[in-house]
């Protein structure tokens, strides 16, 4: 008589063993690459496709179609609403490049997700505005990691019919007494980096806190900024990260005042909606200044189409193209020669593209690090910002 083994029971044991093995694998191996990738030394033929991650309005058919025709590289782009999303997408290694702001670039470089850019392969780089080159948000350890796209300040926008008198300061949404007037109609950016906006406000209104750089905040300064946003929370109508979400909110009257990008402002104006933003006479800024961004195109360390990516980076700062880009979005172009190509003659003057002094009042997005840059290392790092943001939103 044959004794029966217990094949099914054995099978379960084998399966359990394989499971344990898998856990071991996860514990030891795996993990993303820590190398930043190599800089391209020579530009080869286009690979036929380029996969991009970008902000809304950065990759539009007006300039991506001619690019496709010229280079044969088909443009596939994914719009992300926040820098965190961009980093997440870049980490999958499935994209060739990203239009990174300063609060993403450092993390991408640290994580080895982007490769240095060989600027000699990008001829149009030579004529980029000099105050955009070799900046801490696009140059790391002396190596260039990005091609500057353009820059802008975050805008204060309001519904001109509902919000009077026209605000000249961020206090309309950050001073609890004033914000209460627009309860439920305030629009704020849905990202931890918005804490810097509160810091910019406090820099002007509570100078005793001693805030210098709104991204380098010690315990006391950070708490003050977080408290301010917690006080704002009950008055916020909607936190937005998708540009079109904010557009429809303003169009519907769900929101009446808030922080925005030029893209939404011009879309709403184009649809005939009664929106206004800080005017040119005020330098487009409320009196405290504003946070902003200076974006650079970075190439992935795992780019599958590096040649097409380099072609894209060169194309996007081609004078005619960069002018189109800047005008459609409403930002200051990164390419100095673009100023002669803009449809509106004094576009660059209006947007202060050639005026470095203006940008001193704009605090480009940066990655908060514990290193305060002035010797001390007790500043709040990005993890603290993220956790604080979770608490603020509740």
């Amino acid at each position, binding site marked *: 008589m044959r004794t029966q083994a217990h094949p099914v029971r054995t099978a379960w044991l084998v399966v359990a063993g394989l499971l344990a093995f898998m856990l071991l694998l996860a514990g030891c191996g795996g993990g993303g690459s820590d190398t930043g990738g190599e800089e391209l030394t020579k530009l080869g033929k286009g690979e036929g496709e380029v996969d991009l991650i970008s902000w809304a309005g950065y990759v539009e058919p007006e300039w991506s179609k001619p690019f496709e025709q010229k280079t044969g590289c088909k443009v596939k782009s994914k719009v992300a609403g926040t820098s965190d999303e961009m980093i997440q997408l870049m980490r999958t290694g499935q994209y060739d490049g990203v239009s990174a702001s300063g609060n993403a670039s450092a993390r991408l470089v640290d994580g080895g997700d982007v490769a240095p850019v060989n600027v000699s392969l990008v001829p149009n780089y030579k004529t980029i505005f000099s105050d955009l080159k070799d900046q801490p948000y696009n140059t790391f350890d002396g190596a260039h990691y990005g091609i500057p796209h353009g820059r802008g300040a975050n805008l204060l926008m309001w519904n001109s019919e509902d919000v009077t008198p026209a605000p000249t300061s961020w206090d309309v949404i950050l001073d609890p007494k004033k914000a209460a007037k627009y309860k439920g109609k305030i629009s704020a950016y849905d990202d931890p980096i918005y804490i810097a906006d509160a810091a910019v406000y406090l820099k002007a209104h509570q100078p005793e806190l001693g805030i210098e750089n709104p991204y380098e905040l010690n315990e006391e300064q950070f708490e003050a900024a977080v408290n301010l946003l917690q006080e704002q929370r009950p008055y916020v109508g909607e936190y937005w990260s998708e540009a*079109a979400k904010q557009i429809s909110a303003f169009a519907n009257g769900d929101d009446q005042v808030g922080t925005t990008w030029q893209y939404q402002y011009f879309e709403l104006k184009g649809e005939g909606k009664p929106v206004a933003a800080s005017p040119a006479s005020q330098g487009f800024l409320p009196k405290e200044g504003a946070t902003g961004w200076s974006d650079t195109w970075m190439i992935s360390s795992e780019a599958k189409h590096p040649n097409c990516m380099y072609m894209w980076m060169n194309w996007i700062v081609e004078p005619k193209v960069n002018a189109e880009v800047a005008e459609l979005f409403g930002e200051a172009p990164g390419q100095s020669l673009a100023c002669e190509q803009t449809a509106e003659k004094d576009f660059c003057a209006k947007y202060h593209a050639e005026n470095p002094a203006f940008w001193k009042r704009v605090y480009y997005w940066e990655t908060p690090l514990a290193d305060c840059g002035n010797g001390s290392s007790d500043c709040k790092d990005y993890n603290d910002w993220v956790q604080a943001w979770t608490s603020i939103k509740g």
Partner: protein
Amino acid sequence: MKLSKRSALLLRLGLGIGLAFIYVPLIVLAIYAFNASNILEWPPPGLTLDWFPKAVENEFAREAFLTSIKAGIAATAIALVLGTLASLAVARHRFFGRETISFLVVLPIALPGIVTGVALSNTFTQVLGVDLSLFTVVVGHATFCIVVVYNNVVARLRRVSTSFEEASADLGAHTWQTFRFVTFPSLRSALGAGALLAFGLSFDEIIVTTFTIGAGEETLPIWIFRNLFRPNQLPIVNAVAVIVVLISIVPVYLAHRLTREEGGATAARGGAVEAEATAVP
């Protein structure tokens, strides 16, 4: 079944409210497919038929639609095989851990999509070093589709008497022949219903897909998500949604008819077969 007048009225009211709840938002959605403006407001400023031809012409939408169909068919096929295998084991044999199988099979659909998505994505890219692609999407979809096939088939197998299979074996058929000529025919409609629902699940899935898809591919939900917040694309998205709904009426109806007709021979009660066949979401 006879009901008192009052109960019948209340029931009709409940039915009416329920159906209204289901269809009013869909009607609003359809209206927006005719919206003349790019911005969503109510009431829409104007109506136009433009979006429908634009939707059909849109290359990305068409590609995404086909990709979704491909992924759905592949995922359904895998789910059919694995689900049937598992249900045959559970309904026809006794073994260690049998009760756990039902539990195991329902987990992928019961746990949050984001957890499943991130876990699978992590495994593919970090542990296995595989690129994300349509293949990884299919793997993800098949995993949570198994349960819909499994439950349908197990329910059917429990109702079908084993005496046919035993008779077949007694008459000299070996296991595969018995399965092919006796068991399988009685399962056909359960498989059909399960397949339809699995396909539907895969077709509209967004969360797991987001995490398992490669950059170069798009399923229809991914395309929709990408364009959901592009002001000048939104009405096309609405039009696409309406088109898909209209297209889906036919297969859904056919599936219902199919399960009802085949049900007669093996079911104990006429209604129960289509009930169990359509029972699985």
